[in-house]
């Protein structure tokens, strides 16, 4: 034979190690302490089949919006990074023309165009981000919440490219120094992973409504779409609501009354 088998195996072996990243062993030997999703449900837990939200912009003023944002970011240890390039946000204000691109027109008054809306992850029923994740680090729960497993995410950012709503943020560096007041009840993240709103799954588990809903003074309504008697179902049935980019088929679970 023209090639010694040993020589071939040497090269093949070396390239396989380069290819698969031999050092990953470290991560296997020291797996994360706990999976972010494994918050056990309390006796009072809210249970639903498909959680959804209706945001009634008519009832939301700027101050209330800011309160919703602050509450969310505070309890979830979302770092406050000034640099727009590295910004991390779970829920934030965006003007109508940018939140609903294509819906605006040139005759629309400036006040409507620039009307601030609250935007967050839509917890899509058919989430593109989940479809593309190579490790199932982002996945859809039974109750429709699109979750993140911070200990599994490899930081490839495929999900960020896939999400048509710009809902996801990446930890471009260690976020901990940017957390003003750490909430010990909720895990902080490390550099190199993706994060986003998770519909306060940890609050639902103990029977609480999501934090932004609580702060919104009734402007954000949260509930189960599969339950015809829930308030969200009733509103969706009777009022005109819109969703962001519904034509893309991701089936967002966040509805707006504008």
């Amino acid at each position, binding site marked *: *034979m023209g*090639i010694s088998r040993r020589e071939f195996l040497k090269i093949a072996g070396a390239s396989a190690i380069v*290819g698969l990243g031999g050092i990953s062993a470290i991560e296997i030997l020291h797996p994360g302490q706990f999976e972010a999703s494994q918050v056990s449900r309390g006796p009072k837990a809210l249970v639903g089949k498909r959680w959804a939200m209706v945001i009634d912009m008519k009832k939301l003023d700027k101050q209330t919006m800011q309160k919703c944002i602050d509450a969310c970011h505070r309890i979830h240890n979302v770092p406050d990074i000034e640099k*727009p390039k590295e910004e991390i946000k779970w829920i934030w204000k965006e003007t109508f023309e940018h939140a609903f691109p294509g819906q605006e027109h040139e005759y629309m008054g400036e006040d409507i165009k620039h009307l601030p809306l609250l935007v967050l992850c839509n917890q899509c029923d058919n989430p593109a981000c989940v479809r*593309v994740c190579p*490790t199932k680090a982002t996945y859809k729960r039974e109750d429709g919440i699109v979750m993140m497993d911070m200990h599994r995410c490899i930081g490839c950012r495929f999900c960020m490219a896939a999400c048509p709503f710009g809902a996801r943020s*990446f930890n*471009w*560096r260690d976020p901990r120094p940017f957390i003003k007041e750490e909430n010990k009840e909720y895990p902080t993240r*490390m550099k190199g992973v993706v994060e986003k709103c998770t519909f306060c799954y940890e609050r639902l588990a103990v029977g609480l409504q999501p934090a932004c809903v609580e702060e919104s003074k009734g402007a954000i309504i949260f509930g189960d779409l599969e339950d015809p008697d829930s308030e969200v179902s009733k509103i969706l049935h009777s009022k005109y609501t819109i969703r962001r980019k519904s034509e893309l088929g991701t089936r967002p679970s966040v509805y707006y009354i504008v």
Partner: protein
Amino acid sequence: MLETALKGSRTYWSWVIFLLAVIGVGFISYIYQFRVGLGITGMSRDVSWGLYIGQFTFLVGVAASAVTIVLPYYLHNYKKYGRIAVLGEFVAVASVTMCMLFIFVDLGQPLRVLNVLLHPTPRSVMFFDMVVLSGYLLLNILCGWYVLGAERKGVPPAAWIKPFIILAICWAPSIHIVTAFLYQGLPGRHYWLTAIMAAKFLSSAFAAGPSLLIVISLILRRFTRFDPGWEAIQTMAKTSLYFLIVTLAFYGFELFTAFYSNIPGHMHSFKYLFTGIHGYTKLVPVMWICTALAAVALPILIIPQARRNETALGFAAVATFLCLWLEKGISLVVGGFIPNPFERVFEYWPTIPETLITLGVWGIGFFILTILYKVAVSVKEEAIFDKYGERQVRV
């Protein structure tokens, strides 16, 4: 055979040391990135992939393009490629290695890369990409190394290798198609959401790959005694030409669809790339240089007299390669992210450490290529005649 890589001229060693230095600088920069995070790059919340993923995408194409040599040789018995088939396979080996490294340096949590295998997720295109790339790497190492070994012994390769060669030929397009699927299946990124993406990926790869091999062959002719063969070089030039034309046509189709349909979302990225939007113009020079390079390369490759001139051909090959590199290695990825889902513009430009890491990975690729080529050339210089009894070593 590997020992032949340890004996070389002064030029050879200077080149190797230069590459090692580039790799070293890249490695140090990577350590910095590893400690601080990907924040040291130009990427952002809005342009979340940049130079690294661009290089990955481009190099998958270069790897796949080995098929433009291997297929005519093994399936159509095109004898002129007999001498260089292994060169194509070794380019594939170096390119796939670089691809994997580019994915690796792009990860936020690189130590967790094995999660892709621990939690296999077939619905993710990224998972498939990993699988097909690893397979392709092994196939090319096997075929290239084995056939070269046979040549060294002066015996024809055994029959069992043939199925692997055929498999590698079929496998090659798959790696690039799957890479295109990474992009073209994403909702809401209009620049990528086009069925012609995979076809354009293949065509631009089959133009860029041969042009690289032309440059390499011209260098080998000059610096070693091994002659890849003038006719082989000319055939590669034609391959490169036809696929360059096809690629430009495909790009034209995209422009037509976007601008004749006049759908704003479809036009945005093109406008950003070629004219800039809202005064943001960072990529405009890139696109026009790219266009100019194509305009220079095309006539040289088309006009036979120019194509047969060694200097002109070398120039055209470099221009083609650079043009397609700018298109796929930079503008394709970045352009797809601009404007962002809110139709706002946040621009991207690579930082210095990011560029050094990128150069470092290229350095590793060229290092592998150099070693493999040194072995190949030594074997060929010793064999003197190619398989068909023609002299492959110049006197």
